[in-house]
């Protein structure tokens, strides 16, 4: 349903996309995962006919995004990263306008708008100017606007960024509902949990290239092993050295010096070994956990930095190599 083939796009010296290929089969949902500036929005803009690739081709619903842009626009719905709702209009006026500009008669556009306002729990606020809407309401209205024409292909660019947990769950529920109705979806996100939760397949992009592709399970298997995290009663200078021999690669230490993380090969009795080694060095342990890798770990091992380098909690983890 969506096929991207070696898409490239530069803005001046910035290579936003350096040859990105992927495909999304009909009725499935692809999660495009990447940190800030990875090129997600650029890819979405090309696929939704808002930008023209420097090189490469893409087809959406069987139509070329450049040569047959008009046909593509008839098949797609788009929820852009930055809400595109019209602040001077009411919620209802927004939806009616989108319907009319999509070719619906005014009457049909009105009844479709009413249907969507109900579905997205916006009926109460429907006749208020959207300038006063909360972030969650804007996001919902934006998504509603992209569904006016019942598109068979839907692009959602970070649909849950900035939403509170409740709104995020509601959004997930809606997205699942759309997939179950047969809609093909390309969803970009910075949240690994979200991709894990919703996507049939995941592409991980960074610096404009696809660095991994597969189902969540496949990606996790790809890095193998498990994660060890240890919480100390208080920071200790010999803690890292005590662990170095027991883990694969580097030990990451949190800024307060109390949390240590590392990749490990999961072996029987590992927890006991870790605690003994630390104890032998006089380190007091509060908590030890050995768990299967999360997509966060996958991302870290693929890119060398956390998905949320700038805002997430991985930012206070420093990589210390063989410090003693």
């Amino acid at each position, binding site marked *: 349903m969506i096929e991207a083939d070696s898409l490239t796009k530069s803005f001046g010296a910035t290579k936003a996309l350096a040859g990105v290929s992927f495909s999304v089969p009909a009725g499935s949902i692809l999660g495009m995962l990447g940190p800030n500036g990875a090129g997600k929005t650029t890819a979405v803009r090309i696929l939704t006919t808002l930008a023209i690739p420097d090189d490469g081709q893409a087809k959406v619903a069987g139509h070329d995004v450049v040569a047959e842009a*008009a046909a593509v626009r008839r098949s797609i719905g788009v929820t852009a990263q930055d809400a*595109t*709702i019209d602040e*001077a209009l009411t919620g209802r006026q927004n939806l009616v306008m989108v319907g009319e500009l999509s*070719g619906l008669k005014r009457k049909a556009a009105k009844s479709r708008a009413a249907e969507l306002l109900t*579905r997205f729990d916006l009926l109460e606020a429907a006749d208020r100017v959207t300038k006063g809407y909360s972030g969650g309401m804007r996001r919902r209205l934006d998504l509603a606007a992209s569904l006016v024409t019942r598109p068979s292909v839907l692009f959602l660019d970070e649909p849950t960024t900035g939403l509170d947990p409740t709104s995020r769950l509601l959004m997930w529920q809606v997205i699942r509902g759309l997939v179950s109705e047969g809609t093909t979806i390309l969803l970009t996100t910075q949240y690994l949990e979200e991709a894990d939760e919703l996507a049939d397949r995941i592409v991980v992009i960074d610096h404009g290239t696809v660095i991994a592709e597969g189902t969540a399970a496949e990606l996790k298997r790809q890095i193998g092993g498990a994660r060890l995290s240890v919480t100390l009663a208080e920071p200790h200078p010999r803690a890292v050295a005590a662990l170095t021999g027991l883990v694969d690669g580097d030990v990451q230490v949190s800024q307060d010096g109390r949390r240590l993380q590392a990749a490990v090969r999961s072996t029987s009795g590992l927890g006991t070994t870790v605690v003994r080694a630390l104890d032998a060095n006089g380190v007091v342990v509060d908590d030890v956990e050995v768990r299967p890798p999360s997509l966060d770990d996958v991302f870290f091992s693929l890119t060398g930095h956390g998905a949320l380098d700038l805002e997430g909690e991985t930012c206070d983890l420093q990589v210390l190599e063989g410090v003693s």
Partner: protein
Amino acid sequence: MLTTTTLAPPSPALTRSGALARLHDVVVLVRRNLIHIAREPLQLSDVTVQPVLFTLLFVYVFGSGVPIHDGSYKDFAIAGLMLLNLTTSAMGTAVGLISDITTGAIDRFCTLPMWRSAVLVGRSLADLLSSALCIAIVAVTGLAIGWRPDASAGSILAGFAIALLFSYALSWACAALGVVSKGPESAQGVGLIILFPLAIVSNAMVPTAGMPGWLQVIANWNPVSSVTAAVRHLFGNPNPSATISAWPMQHPVLAAVAWSALILAVFAPLAAHLFRQKTTG
């Protein structure tokens, strides 16, 4: 809670083409832009409060100091005030367009199966309607303080029409400016720098005869002067420019139409081209 309804099969009537569909898109966007004008205090005051204020200020402040030979300043000034207001409020087109581009409204439009140029046409027509409101308010204010046209109804209507034609042409020039500007503020700033001198260095508010020689030449060839002179002529109001030998002042109606046509011919395609470029990055 979100209710889950099953989707009906894809709606028909989504394949559209032809002039009728384009007209439909334009009408939808005109309506949308009129809502914007009505809800944005600054834009609304440009075409409602400002015309009244300017009319009163100019007539009562300047009126005493500017002698008009064949009539009163009031009768001289109303046509000029129409052009002054139309010219300075043309900025609204530039500001509105770049706001739509920067806020993402255009991105929404551009993913819809609509006629893209309807964005420009719809804006220019909505601005034309607000221009009509603007000069109607100048006229009503003028009538209230004693301005009287002295011509046939047809001629007076032609006067209004020629002012609006120019204003429409100018809005396409401002559309081009809006598309290339960095943001609403810069559009406003640049627009002011261009439009204010355009409106003032003209015969709109004072006869050009008192200006220094070189400035007179500019003022007499300024499109705003041609249009103002044409409107005065058609309203049957005092028109001191009629004695000036510069070609546009001798043939103000022809010059006004020619200027408007020229501006439209240059800037409508240019604005459309720049807009297309901007929206397919």
